[in-house]
């Protein structure tokens, strides 16, 4: 048993999968001097400075309008949750170390050196209170992509050993075991076999050659395994040549969420290598928001060249096959509302895909206000759902989501992200709320017209 497993046992009896809440706060990793911690944070943040990030750093006019788009500020009124403020120490470091007038800033100490105390204070802002949902990026009059900058700031924080304990442990477990939730390859295969029986379908494992490589998220494997069966049923109904591969089946990327670029690359490369090995022309990603961003938009950067296959979120795949008439579904007499996963819709550009699928299903869709690209985040993205100390804040921002859903009057809430789904289920339990979030993928599978 490795250190991560020994020190951080899984929490299997809760709505939200994660690790047991630690008895004390451990938000420093490693035993290194404070100065070294600061140096590592700054050096690794500086590595991400390029023309885009430098332009963003130079552009802010401190108008504060990003606050008005952020669920954390809107729900608490606390100015520290202003999105651009979450980058303040990194802006300070940029000005002092890398900006056009950096020598003057240093010579006259116009921008002070960053202290470890500042970084510790900012840990909550960079991790606990930012899901990188990107609403702030969409409102910024200067066009600054603040969410991306928060992701880059996490790189420095990780290297400095300043990651919230639980998120670090989950990411470490994912790196060591291949899954943040103990869904090792053999566990996955067992559960996939179980789902094959349950759904009376075949699950393809480790086929030597296949046109489609399918990946799942650990949350689905461990908590919503019907997704495995649903995916298999749909692909089999289409007669696709597809497979799961034991060397690359898990699509979540806690390396990316925690800020460890090496782990991010390692996790991404498992799927890329598996796809290349089986000659896949398409990788279908599961109902998981950040998994989509990690491979669809960042995968090629990890690979160092364009990916030799296409990448689709499962909702995009479903939209293609229902709109082409290849997949036929029964009409569903339900009033539903749809929660857009931020990384798939607002940040990913696939906002319309689930709506195409819902139209094919004939559901009565009651859109939330706001919806689609302007949707409020569930509050659990960006790894926030793993961080216990952030629970209170997460529930506070979830109240926005509850209001949105209640106002639609819909019976069912659908989504295409298992992380949103577990955040939703956890908050549902917390609030004793009667609404349930369901999977669009599973709804499609349940209503397949199979020849």
């Amino acid at each position: 048993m490795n250190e991560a497993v020994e020190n951080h046992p899984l929490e299997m009896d809760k709505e939200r999968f994660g690790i047991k809440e630690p008895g004390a706060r451990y938000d420093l990793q490693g035993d290194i001097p404070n100065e070294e911690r600061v140096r590592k944070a700054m050096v690794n943040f500086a590595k991400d400075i390029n023309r885009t990030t430098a332009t963003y750093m130079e552009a802010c006019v401190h108008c504060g309008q990003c606050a008005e788009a952020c669920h954390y500020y809107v729900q608490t009124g606390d100015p520290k949750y202003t999105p651009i403020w979450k980058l303040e120490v990194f802006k300070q470091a940029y000005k002092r170390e890398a900006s056009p007038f950096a020598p003057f800033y240093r010579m006259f100490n116009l921008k002070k050196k960053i202290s470890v105390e500042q970084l510790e204070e900012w840990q909550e802002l960079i991790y606990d209170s930012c899901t990188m949902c990107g609403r702030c990026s969409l409102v910024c009059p200067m066009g600054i992509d603040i969410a991306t900058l928060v992701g880059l700031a996490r790189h420095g924080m990780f290297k400095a050993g300043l990651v919230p304990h639980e998120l670090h442990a989950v990411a470490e477990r994912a790196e060591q075991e291949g899954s943040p939730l103990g869904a090792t390859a053999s566990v996955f295969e067992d559960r996939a076999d179980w789902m094959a029986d349950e759904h009376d379908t075949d699950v393809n494992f480790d086929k030597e050659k296949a046109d489609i490589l399918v990946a799942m998220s650990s949350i689905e494997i461990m908590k919503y395994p019907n997704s495995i069966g649903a995916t298999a049923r749909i692909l089999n109904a289409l007669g696709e040549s597809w497979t799961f591969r034991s060397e690359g089946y898990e699509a979540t990327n806690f390396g990316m969420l925690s800020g460890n670029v090496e782990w991010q690359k390692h996790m991404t490369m498992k799927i890329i290598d598996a796809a290349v090995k089986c000659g896949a022309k398409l990788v279908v990603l599961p109902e998981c928001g950040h998994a989509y961003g990690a491979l669809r938009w960042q995968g090629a950067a990890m690979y160092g060249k364009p990916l030799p296959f296409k990448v689709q979120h499962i909702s995009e795949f479903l939209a293609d096959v229902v709109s082409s008439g290849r997949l036929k579904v029964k009409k569903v007499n339900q009033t539903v509302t749809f929660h857009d996963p931020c990384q798939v819709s607002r940040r990913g550009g696939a906002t319309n895909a689930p709506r195409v699928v819902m139209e094919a299903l004939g559901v009565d869709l009651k859109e939330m206000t706001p919806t689609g690209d302007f949707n409020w985040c569930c509050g659990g993205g960006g790894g926030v759902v793993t961080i216990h100390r952030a629970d209170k804040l997460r529930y506070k921002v979830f109240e926005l989501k509850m209001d949105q859903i209640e106002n639609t009057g819909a019976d069912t809430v659908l989504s295409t992200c298992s992380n949103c789904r577990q955040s939703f289920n956890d908050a549902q339990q917390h609030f004793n709320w009667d609404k349930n979030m369901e999977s669009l993928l599973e709804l499609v599978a349940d209503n397949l017209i199979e020849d």
Partner: protein
Amino acid sequence: MELLEFARGDGLQIAVTIFAAGLIWRLVHLLMTLKKTDLSEARQAGEKAGGIRTIFSRFLHHEPFRERTRNGTIIAYTFHIGLAIIFFGGAPHILFIESFSGLAWSPMPTVVVHVTAAVTLAALIAAVVRRMRHPVLNMLSNFDDYFSWLITTLPVITGLLAVAHIGARYEVLLAIHILSFDAFLIWFPFGKLMHSIIVFGSRYTTGVTFTRRGARV
């Protein structure tokens, strides 16, 4: 009138030199920074057009954001448009522009420019009061924010005083007005006033990225 001669002679030349050198250095520094290539497969073509579109589309907030950002937006637009009307519509300013560029156009009616200047000043005061009182803005604000505000507001105040002949002889007031503009030019490349140029780059960059993804810009 030595002060006036200095203000529009050597003073202005020094200011323009610093303005140009600072501007070039800041832009060259940005352009020399490594450009990262996006290797992901674009969902759609037209990313450059998307970047240009974003430069314009971000002039107006998307509808869902408008209510919560209304006050800040109205104040900002009032003084930005006001400053443009004053600078490009005031007869003396057009003469000034013509003196070094040869370009000239019909001025706006004096009364329009004067009223605009008064409204602009009111908006600038509202902006700084809001910056001091609003918890978010107060927290975000630093020396650059307040000094840039001051350096922008001084030419408006001194211009109004010169027009109204209040406080001193006209030549003195005019000299102070031009000196305040000189100061504006000197500070421009070093602080947030540069946003009036960088805004095009940051909006374009985000527009390109998210157009590639087929996402909303």
